[in-house]
C-alpha cells in the first residue's frame, strides 16, 4: 500500500521555486474569495437564497444607474431647461422651448429657413448616411459571409482580414484614412500629377469616403454575425433541395435567405442604431466638413453642448434622436415578432 503522506511531502520539497511561488500567489488570490464566500454564506443564511440574486446583480445595476440611467434622466430634464449652467439646480425651466426651436422651420426643404439650421443639415446628412450605409453594410456583409462560408482556400485568413478593422479604434481608422486621402496624402501622391483630387475637400467626395470608411470599419462585425447565422442552417436542407434539383441560386433564395432573416433583422437593428449614432470616426476624419457636408446629428449635439454651451438645445436634440431610434426599434421588433409568429424564422 502506498504511503500518500510521504509521497505528498517529498513532492512538495522537490518542487521548484516557481512552483512554490505560483502556489503562494494562488493562495493569496484565493484568500479574498474565501473571505467573500464566508460573508455571502452568512448573508444567504440571513436573507434566503431567493433574494441572493439581487445582490449579485447589484454592482452592475449601480454602474448602469450611475453612468446610463442617471445621465438619461438628466438629459431629459436638461431638454426642458435653458441657460449655460452645467448643474441642473442652476438651470431655468423653459418647457418645450428647446424642442420648438429645433423643430421650427418656414420651409423644411431649406435648412436656412429653420431656427436651428445646423440641426436640420445634420439630420439630412444623417438620413443620407444611414440609408446608404445600412444598405451597403447589409449587402456587403451578406455577400462576404456567404463567400467566407464556402470551402475556399485560406478561409481562416480571409475571415481574419475582414474582421481585423473591427478591432481598431475608430479614431485610429479615421486618422489612417485621413492620411491616405488628404490633399498631401498617400492616394493623392499616387494619383494626382498636379492639383490633388479633393477627396476630403469636396462635399460629395467627403460623404462618399465617410461611408466607405465606416462600412470598411464595421462590416467585419456584421459579417461574423451573418456567418454564425449561415452555419446554424441545417446542411440537410441543402442536400434535400439539391436532390430535388434546386440550383445554387434557388437554394440561396429559398433556403438561405428565409432562414437567415432573423439574423439579418438583428444586423439591421444594430447597423441602423449605430449608423444613426455616427460621430467619432466621422468627426476625426472630416470634422463634419467640408462646410457641414458630413456633419451628423450627434456632432451637432456635441458641438451645441461643449462648444456653444447650449446644453438645453443639445439635450433637446438628443431627445429627438432617442425618440427616432425608439420608433425604429419598436417597428423592427414588431416586424421580427410577426415574422416569428408566422413561422418564418
Amino acid at each position, binding site marked *: 500500500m502506498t504511503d500518500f503522506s510521504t509521497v505528498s511531502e517529498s513532492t512538495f520539497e522537490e518542487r521548484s521555486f516557481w512552483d512554490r511561488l505560483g502556489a503562494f500567489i494562488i493562495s493569496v488570490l484565493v484568500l479574498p474569495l474565501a473571505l467573500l464566500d464566508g460573508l455571502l454564506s452568512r448573508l444567504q443564511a440571513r436573507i434566503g437564497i431567493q433574494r441572493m440574486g439581487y445582490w449579485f446583480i447589484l454592482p452592475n445595476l449601480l454602474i448602469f444607474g450611475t453612468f446610463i440611467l442617471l445621465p438619461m434622466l438628466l438629459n431629459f430634464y436638461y431638454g426642458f431647461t435653458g441657460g449655460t*449652467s452645467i448643474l441642473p439646480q*442652476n438651470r*431655468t425651466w423653459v418647457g418645450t422651448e428647446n424642442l420648438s426651436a429645433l423643430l421650427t422651420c418656414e420651409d423644411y426643404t431649406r435648412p436656412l429657413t429653420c431656427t436651428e439650421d445646423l440641426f436640420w443639415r445634420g439630420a439630412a446628412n444623417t438620413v443620407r448616411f444611414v440609408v446608404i450605409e445600412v444598405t451597403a453594410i447589409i449587402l456587403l456583409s451578406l455577400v462576404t459571409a456567404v463567400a467566407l462560408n464556402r470551402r475556399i482556400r485560406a478561409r481562416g485568413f480571409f475571415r481574419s482580414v475582414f474582421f481585423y478593422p473591427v478591432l481598431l479604434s475608430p479614431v485610429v481608422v479615421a486618422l489612417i484614412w485621413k492620411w491616405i486621402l488628404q490633399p498631401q496624402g498617400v492616394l493623392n501622391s499616387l494619383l494626382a500629377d498636379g492639383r490633388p483630387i479633393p477627396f476630403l475637400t469636396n462635399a460629395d467626395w467627403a460623404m462618399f469616403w465617410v461611408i466607405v470608411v465606416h462600412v470598411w470599419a464595421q462590416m467585419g462585425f456584421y459579417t461574423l454575425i451573418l456567418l454564425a447565422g449561415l452555419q446554424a442552417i441545417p446542411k440537410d436542407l441543402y442536400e434535400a433541395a439539391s436532390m430535388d434539383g434546386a440550383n445554387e441560386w434557388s437554394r440561396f433564395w429559398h433556403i438561405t435567405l428565409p432562414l437567415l432573416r432573423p439574423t439579418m433583422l438583428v444586423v439591421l437593428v444594430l447597423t441602423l442604431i449605430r449608423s444613426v449614432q455616427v460621430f467619432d470616426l466621422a468627426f476625426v476624419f*472630416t470634422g*463634419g466638413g467640408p462646410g457641414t457636408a458630413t456633419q451628423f446629428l450627434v456632432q451637432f449635439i456635441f458641438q451645441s453642448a461643449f462648444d456653444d454651451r447650449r446644453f438645453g438645445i443639445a439635450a433637446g436634440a438628443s431627445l429627438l434622436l432617442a425618440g427616432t431610434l425608439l420608433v425604429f426599434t419598436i417597428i423592427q421588433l414588431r416586424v421580427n415578432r410577426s415574422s416569428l409568429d408566422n413561422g418564418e424564422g
Partner: protein
Amino acid sequence: MNKKALAGLFIASSLALAGFVQAQDVTELRLTWYNDGNEGEVLRSLLDTFEANNPDIRVVVDTLPYADLHTTLQAQVEAGDAPDLARINDVARFAGNYLPLNDIVADADYYTTNFPEAVLASLRTADDTTGIYGFPLQFSVTVPFINRTLWDQAGIEPLGPDATWPEWVAASEEVAAATGTPYAFAIDRTGHRFWGFSLVQGADYINEEGGFTIDTPGFRAAAQELIDYNAAGLIPADVWAGSGGGYVAATEYFINGQVPLYYAGTWQIGNFTNNISAFDWELIPNPAGEAQSTGIPGGSLLVSFASTEHPAEVARLVDYLSSTEVVREFSERTLFLPGHLGLIEEGIDYPSSAEALSVALTEIPKISEEAYALQYSPFTFVLNPEIRDRLSQVIVGEISLDEAIVLIQERIDQAVAEAAAAA
C-alpha cells in the same frame, strides 16, 4: 513580538505622527493648469522655489487637457468646489466667482501699474471697475510669419510696415509661383485669426451701444478675400474649406515649407524654434490697412477663485508668481511673451529666437481697444466659432456671404439677449 519588531513599530509610529503634525501646519493649495509646451515644468521649478521660501504652503498642480479645462472648471465652480487657482483663458465664463485680491495682496497698485487694464477688467463683472482677480501669466498676439528663405529664393523683398493684407498675399503669391511652393498664404481656421485679418481692413464689430455689428465694409472685404483666396487655391483647401467642426491650425504647412506667408500668433515661436531647421523664418509686424495695424491678444491668466479656504496663502502665491523677476524667468524659459507692461517695455533676454520675440513684443502696444474688447468679451466664445463655421460654409458654397452675415448676426444677438434675460 520580539524587541526588534517593537522598536520598528515605535519608530514607524513616531514618524507617522511627526508627519501628521507637520501636515497640520502646511496649507495645500490646488492649482489647475494646462500645458501648451514646457511651461508646466517651468512652473513646477518656480513653485519649488516658492515652497522652499514658504514652508507653510504646498502647491499641488492638477494638469488637465486644454479641451476639458473650462468645462471641468465650470462644473467645479458651480458646485462650489473650485480649485484655489487656475490658469484659464475663457475668463468671462467665471466672472463673479473670482477671489478679490485687492485687500490681500501685498500691493494692489503693483497689478494696476504693471498689467494691461483691459486684461484685468476682463475678470470683473459689469458694475466692478477696480477689482483685481488675477493677472496675465503669459501674453500672446496674432502675427504673420514668413518663410524668409523662399522670399530670398524668389528674389522678392518682404514688404514694409505700410503694406496691406492683399498686398502681402499678392507678393506671397509671386513668391510661391517663383519657388514652386504649393500655396501662397495660410491662416488658421478660427474666428480669432479672422478678427485680426478683418480689423485691420476696417471691420468694426463692437458698436456704440456695446452690441455687435457684423455687416461692415471691412468685414465684407476681409471675408471676400478669404473666399477668393480659397477659390483660387492660394490657401490649403483642407484648412478652411475642408474642415468642419473646430479649430484647425495651418502650422504644418509652414513648418514643411509649403507656404511663404502664414498668419498665426506668437505662441508658435517656440514651436518654430524647435521644429524648423531647413529654412529661415521671420516674424513680421501685422499689416496695416484702412484701420490701425493690430493683432488680437490672447494668452492665459492666472486667477483665484472665491471658494478658496486659504485666501491669504493664495495672495502670497499670486504675489510671487506675478512678481517681475518670476514673470521674467517664466517668459525666458518658456519663450512666451510676458503680460507685464514693464517687461514688455524693457525687453527680455530670450535664450533663442530673440529677434522674433523682440518684434513680437513691439506688437503688444499696437493692439487696438477693439481687439482687446473682442478677445475679452463675454461673447467671444460665441462669435469666434460662429464666424469660423459660417465662413467655411460660404467657402464651400453651402450659403452666400449675405446669408452668413445674417446668421452670424442672429446668433450673436440671441446670445446677448439670453445673457441679458439671465441677468
